[in-house]
């Protein structure tokens, strides 16, 4: 059978198809259909010829098979150093094989590739720093994911994820109305405590336009409220767009590049429409990577930059603290050992390592901050990156992957972990659920709000 009803080469573009795929519990039917899915080998090879450029070709060719990359990969480390987890092996035996065969591979092989691409690599880009040739497996796996997606070999959750982005332009079924209502609702709720607080939608020429992760309006609307509180206290002239507010990209994890482009253009349109001086997003690593670091290229922007300066939330926060727009009450600073999770997506992919430590210097009593080892650009993935967190079929492998972060955290001796990345936050939560090591974890927003030195009369105490 060439194409299934749920599992096929066509992206999900209608609400109907989305609901149908969603209703297939854990993708049972979807994966059953995948067993029969044909590989369009001609199309596969044509795509490779068109999109595989000098860099990737050279990487595949000159890999010295030296194994220097082996223990740079946390998945190799936590899986008892089995050679099948050596980064170079993972890519050579999947993408390398497809290229060698000129795309002439079968269903079984594609399913094998899917497993490797989504359960043996989180695209954390760490190995690239340890390879003498600078071969970055994270980049190559993203490419492989694109090929697999185009042939329909993609985990059920990510097919849905990118379908959500295509249909709703959000990773969850949050419509424009839902979003605007949530903003209004949160503004009302929060205003009781913070008189004068608003969440202005579609305001022109603001200082800052704020974008977020659709899971926030859907499941943690308080995050939006917290952002509003901090903008309010800092006296920021800010706004959220009614359209183009969602900056995440499960399509990036799925390898659905067409959808990535559509989504990021949607956000850029909002920027052009509202003309803010700058944009900032929420505490999310992959959203930032998608919209700010990779997005400009999807959108075909020559300078590789978004239409307006677009900073990560940690940059906005550090600036507000530095400039005294937000003041921390010294008595409320953190006075217990605390550590920080460096998100690969904005540390290894954009160099934002010092700015998070600057925030720490304001909010943690000196002597209490403990670095993870290794840290900054050498830090390990939380264990759930690249979509790994969300894929049911690979839950077991993901749980093994969490062990690296567990060991890193245990080594610090801290009970509190600051994780200014949505996905890292989720992974650390799951880590505690799975292994019960007795830790707490937090985004920056609630921590800071709890520590603020608030001007008299700004907040109503109940």
């Amino acid at each position, binding site marked *: 059978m060439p194409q299934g009803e749920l599992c096929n080469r066509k992206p999900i573009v209608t609400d109907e198809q989305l609901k149908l795929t969603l209703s297939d519990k854990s993708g049972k039917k979807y994966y059953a259909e995948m067993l029969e899915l044909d590989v369009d080998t001609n199309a596969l090879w044509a795509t490779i010829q068109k999109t595989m450029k000098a860099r990737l070709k050279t990487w595949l060719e000159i890999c010295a098979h030296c194994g220097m990359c082996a223990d740079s990969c946390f998945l190799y480390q936590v899986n008892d150093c089995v050679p099948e987890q*050596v980064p170079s092996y993972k890519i050579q035996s999947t993408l390398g094989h497809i290229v060698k065969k000129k795309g002439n591979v079968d269903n079984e092989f594609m399913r094998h590739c899917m497993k490797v691409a989504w359960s043996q690599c989180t695209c954390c880009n760490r190995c690239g720093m340890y390879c003498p040739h600078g071969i970055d497996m994270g980049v190559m796996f993203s490419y492989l994911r694109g090929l697999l997606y185009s042939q329909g070999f993609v985990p059920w959750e990510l097919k849905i994820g990118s379908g959500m982005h295509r249909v709703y332009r959000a990773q969850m079924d949050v419509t424009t109305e839902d979003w605007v209502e949530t903003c209004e609702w949160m503004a009302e709720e929060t205003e009781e405590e913070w008189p004068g607080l608003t969440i202005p939608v579609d305001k022109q020429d603001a200082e800052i336009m704020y974008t977020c992760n659709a899971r926030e309006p859907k499941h943690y609307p308080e995050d939006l409220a917290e952002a509003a509180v901090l903008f309010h206290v800092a006296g920021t002239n800010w706004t959220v767009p009614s359209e183009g507010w969602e900056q995440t990209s499960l399509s990036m994890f799925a390898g659905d590049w067409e959808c990535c482009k559509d989504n990021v253009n949607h956000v850029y349109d909002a920027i052009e429409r509202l003309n803010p001086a700058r944009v900032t997003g929420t505490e999310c690593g992959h959203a930032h990577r998608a919209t700010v670091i990779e997005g400009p290229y999807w959108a075909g922007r020559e300078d590789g930059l978004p239409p307006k300066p677009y900073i990560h939330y940690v940059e906005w926060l550090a600036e507000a603290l530095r400039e005294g727009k937000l003041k921390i009450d010294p008595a409320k600073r953190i006075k217990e050992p605390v550590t920080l999770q460096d998100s690969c997506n904005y540390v290894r992919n954009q160099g934002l390592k010092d700015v998070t430590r600057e925030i720490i210097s304001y909010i943690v009593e000196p002597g209490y901050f403990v670095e993870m080892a290794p840290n900054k650009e050498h830090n390990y993935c939380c264990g759930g990156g690249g979509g790994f967190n969300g894929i049911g079929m690979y839950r077991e492998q993901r749980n093994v992957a969490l062990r690296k972060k567990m060991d890193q955290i245990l080594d610090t001796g801290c009970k509190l972990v600051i994780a200014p990345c949505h996905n890292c936050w989720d992974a650390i939560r799951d880590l505690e659920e799975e292994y019960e090591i007795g830790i707490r974890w937090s985004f920056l927003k609630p921590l800071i709000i709890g520590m603020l030195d608030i001007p008299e009369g700004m907040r109503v105490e109940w």
Partner: protein
Amino acid sequence: MYELLTGPLLWLVFAISFGGLLVRVVLYFKGLSQQLDRVAYKAHLSYGLKGAFNSIISWLNPVGARAWRKKPGYTFIFFAFHIGLLATPIFLAAHNIMLQENLGFSLPQMPAFFADLLSWTVIVACVAIILRRIALPEVRILTTAYDYLLLVITVAPFVTGLIARYQMGDYQFWLLAHIITGEIWLLCLPFTKLSHCVLFFCSRAQLGMDYGIKRGGLKGSTFSW
């Protein structure tokens, strides 16, 4: 035979080898795509070049990259192998005499004793590399017959050169063997993975640009390799 091998044929080999390598470099850079690679090479050239330079220098220095520092044993073997491999043929007295005769100039020469030492280093390092390939599971799984073949092609001129130098067996035969294996090695450079002798610089420069631009450079953070 000797005349042919060190005369016209040698020039042809040089032309193919160095011309071929040049073509590989040109094709590499021509084949980059700002959109598909997701690096705006041209728009932030100065950041990019800084990153490229940083990346290359860090990796040419045996203590410059964290990866090197973490594996001192392998790093030592690796550098010994590559230094011997490059320095010996270029600064060998006998080669320079040929150069002098043919082109009328020569490079600084190294003492014979030193050349012997370097040649032995290459051979010993090669054996160590092979043993490492066999001994470590994470390297064994990557290793193919092609990897061994390339190692053989690479050390063959050194083995034959040393045999000729010590005048073991038939000198003329080993000298010719040395020249032929050397020319085979040169011919393989552009067409095999040995092309990494130039593509290493391309790839490193490229990733260095990536880091120097979007992966931190524009944010003013220097990247520690």
